[in-house]
């Protein structure tokens, strides 16, 4: 036990896809495109995410038969059907648990979970936080459109207070989750956010997520043009630069037109300041590798349901042994030097105390 405790925080030295076989030849997006007709609504943000992922996957250079996409229920969860990999469209909220079974048993698989705000944060909230704390080798992509689309327009756990929907004609009184704060609270080792329409930013976040060993949690803001159209428009329109705060590890956090805004420390937290009113050394330099989760948590608090200052990029990327690696390590040690063959099984069944009845 003490040996295990001493391993906490120790880097096992494994790359994200250490055991996944490499493809023999370069791949293209069409190699990851299945023969299934894509059936999202016209204008759905899922299309651009699908295109980004199909274009990104060849970059990993992994055999596609060693990739497994698992989803739950909801519009986003149709995703696996459209990728020419192994896939499972499972049941509502449970994808992380199914992915855990896959990841534990098969280190040679690259396991991806595709989920939505209702799937991951309402019905599947429990599985999400436990996958994050265990740090199982999987990449969780949460498409957040802040609405229930497939059930035709009820508010979700990320809908803003006051949201008028079919189920909340007088406005929602539910306080929403801050997705990033939730993941950080569960001690996720990789937490990032991207915007569906920002192909470059999204791909960069996916790249880093795929390189991370353990659970990578990526929230992707995505529009539902039918039931929540334009919900992220403030992050896309002309004055979006006032709100969009891109972060890169090792770089000072400045944003806005001509970098006029920046992030500075403020007591135990952070705040946005005018760059010309602070001295340069007071501007926070983004440190995604900080062991201290409070910094990343403070970052997540800069943007709330009003999307006032919305951080995009990798909030946190730290190394911690993943659950499945440790399980396999224990399995290996239990199996090393000890036979598990028929003779050993016969010995197990026979046990220590027997008696014989002669015929």
């Amino acid at each position, binding site marked *: 036990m003490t040996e295990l405790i001493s391993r906490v925080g120790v880097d096992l030295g494994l790359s994200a896809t250490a055991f996944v076989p490499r493809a023999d030849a370069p791949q293209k997006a069409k190699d990851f495109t299945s023969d299934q007709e894509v059936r999202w609504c016209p204008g759905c943000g899922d299309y651009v995410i699908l295109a980004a992922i199909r274009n990104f996957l060849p970059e990993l250079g992994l055999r596609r*038969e060693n990739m497994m996409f698992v989803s739950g229920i909801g519009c986003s969860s149709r995703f696996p059907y459209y990728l020419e990999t192994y896939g*499972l469209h499972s049941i509502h909220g449970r994808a992380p648990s199914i992915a*855990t079974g896959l990841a534990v048993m098969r280190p040679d698989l690259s396991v991806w979970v595709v989920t939505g705000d209702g799937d991951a944060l309402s019905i599947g909230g429990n599985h999400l936080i436990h996958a994050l704390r265990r740090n199982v080798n999987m990449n969780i992509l949460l498409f957040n459109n802040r609405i229930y689309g497939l059930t035709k327009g009820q508010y979700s756990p990320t809908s803003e207070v006051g949201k008028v929907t079919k189920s909340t004609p007088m406005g929602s009184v539910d306080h929403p989750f801050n997705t990033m704060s939730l993941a950080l609270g569960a001690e996720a080792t990789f937490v990032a956010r991207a915007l569906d329409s920002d192909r470059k930013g999204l791909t960069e976040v996916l790249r880093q997520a795929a390189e991370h060993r353990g659970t990578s949690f990526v929230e992707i803001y995505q529009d539902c043009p039918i039931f929540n159209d334009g919900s992220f428009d403030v992050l896309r329109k002309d004055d979006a630069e006032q709100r969009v705060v891109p972060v890169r590890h090792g770089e000072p956090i400045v944003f806005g037109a001509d970098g006029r805004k920046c992030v500075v420390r403020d007591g135990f937290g952070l705040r946005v300041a005018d760059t010309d009113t602070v001295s340069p050394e007071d501007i926070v330099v983004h440190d995604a590798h900080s062991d201290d989760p409070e910094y990343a948590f403070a970052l997540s608090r800069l943007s709330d349901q009003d999307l006032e200052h919305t951080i995009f990029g990798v909030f946190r990327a730290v190394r911690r042994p993943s659950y499945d690696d440790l399980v396999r390590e224990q399995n290996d040690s239990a199996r090393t030097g000890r036979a598990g063959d028929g003779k050993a099984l016969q010995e197990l069944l026979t046990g220590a105390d027997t008696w014989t009845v002669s015929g």
Partner: protein
Amino acid sequence: MTKVDKTKLERVVIRFAGDSGDGMQLTGDRFTAEAAVFGNDLATQPNFPAEIRAPQGTLPGVSSFQIQIADHDILTAGDRPHVLVAMNPAALKANVADLPRGGTVIVNTDEFTKRNLSKVGYTSNPLEDGSLSDLVVHAAPMSSLSVGAVEPAGLSRKDGERSKNMFALGLLSWMYNRPVSGIEDFLRTKFAKKPQVAEGNLLAFRAGWNYGETTETFATTYEIEKADLPAGTYRQISGNTALAYGLVAAQHLSGLELFLGTYPITPASDILHELTKHRRFGVTTFQAEDEIAAVGAAIGASLSGALGVTSTSGPGLALKSEAIGLAVMTEIPLVVVDVQRGGPSTGLPTKTEQADLLQALHGRNGESPVAVIAPSSPADCFDAAVEAARIAVTYRTPVLLLSDGAIANGSEPWRIPSVDAMTPIDPGFESAPTVSGVPFRPYARDRETLARPMAIPGTPGLEHRLGGIEKANGSGNISYEPANHDLMVRLRQAKIDGIDVPDALVDDPSGEAELLIVGWGSSYGPIGEACRRARRRGTKVAHLQIRHLNPLPKNLGDVLRSYRTVIAPEMNLGQLSSVLRARFLVDIQPVTKVQGLAFLADEILDAIDAALAGTLRGWEESKTTTALAEAEYRASTGCEEENA
């Protein structure tokens, strides 16, 4: 030292009872091990409270362990104990009514203090007031004798008192001329890190033995010869251990890694505890965050090409329903173990019941058939687990294995099977195609079994997507076609209906019985024993224990129709009988018991008599009318609480 007689007995039923902290389960286990190594046939039945430590000395805190040992083949732990070992007044009060007239009580007098007596409502000391005059009472100050015995080991008074269960074990071991060679090894291993405690317990054990031998309290000791069982090498085994071993064997036979996803729940947790010890056999265990995640991970493991197993009890099975439906839809192997307990809701966590049969058969949305199999005894849990895995893998289906609290914790001798003689299980996964570009058809079924081909991730060229949405037969693409759904619902049902299960075998030595008793699962013991008793006095009766509950044996309808009267004893309100009545239009009469306790053989015998006299139906109905009258009486008298 007086001369002590030795009397031969064919069998004896002993019940050890004490406070839940008194170590009665351990005492019973050791007495069982002695009997097993000696070569008796035996059966055991523990009974313990749900509370880990209920208030000391109270009735709810009583824990007991019953064992029957015999020189012949027996089927149950016995109806009533011949001997009760009562470590305190609560244990006496809770159990004494079960003793027959002339039964033996051995009590620890040290605990019969005024305070302890009043705790359980004794106004006078039953050891002194003549209320036990129908019984043979042996009173021994076990606590103080133990304290004295452990002194040389340098143990405290408290530790001495804690070893009183070993004193009781020593005394009973002497009384029944048990072999004692194993106890020393056992204690030295159990307390390997506390040699002082091991020594103290051994001293207490010897003190108990010597107390029997040197005091004049006991005029007789008893001998129970070895039982004449079928030739072979035997060991003692509990149902949960046998079930875990069966899963390990299934791993070996199939060559698949075994993955148990589970969440702790009484009385199933011991399966996890056992399996996790055997990781060297390709076993991985996962304690999930909840019941749903447990089955979810097992499903993921099955998809990955392992054998996914989840274990639980009734409340957990309810939570897993939707996920089991996903395994039905995706047609993957999955073994779901339900160690049944009293329900509904939290119910009676540590007590037994068979009331999850309909949940197992039907407790999912949609037409969602699964195979259901129920072991009939502790040792049978091994074979049932192997059988469940074989069906799951062969037919690509969830299999529900219905054990229950009685056989999970009960134990009996097990003739150890030969691993080499077991039939391998062929997973038959698809291999990479030789011709590329032909899409894999995950629902192109095997003509004989209707099972679908399985291609596991990592197999090039067979990439495909599964899911809970209805699939087109053959291609496995999403399909909302009315005709396809109709086809798939019927095919999934036909696949389960077509599972190859053995014909029902009726036990009817006379071949002339007109009364058939149908049971399932753990009632095998009491029903079998009741039939033997009935036959000994000349009553012709046939017994059928159904092991495969879905699909049912193909000859079952013919069997049921060939008897004038069919009765079905169950620890529920008649679930099997309603299934069989609906299926075969045979007027099967239920015999119901829902007390959290297994049937006694005598209760089944009474049901046999009532069935033959034509009064069974009325008797069954009276169970409800009596309950209603009871409620009415309590409402009218304002006396809602049951008297202690």
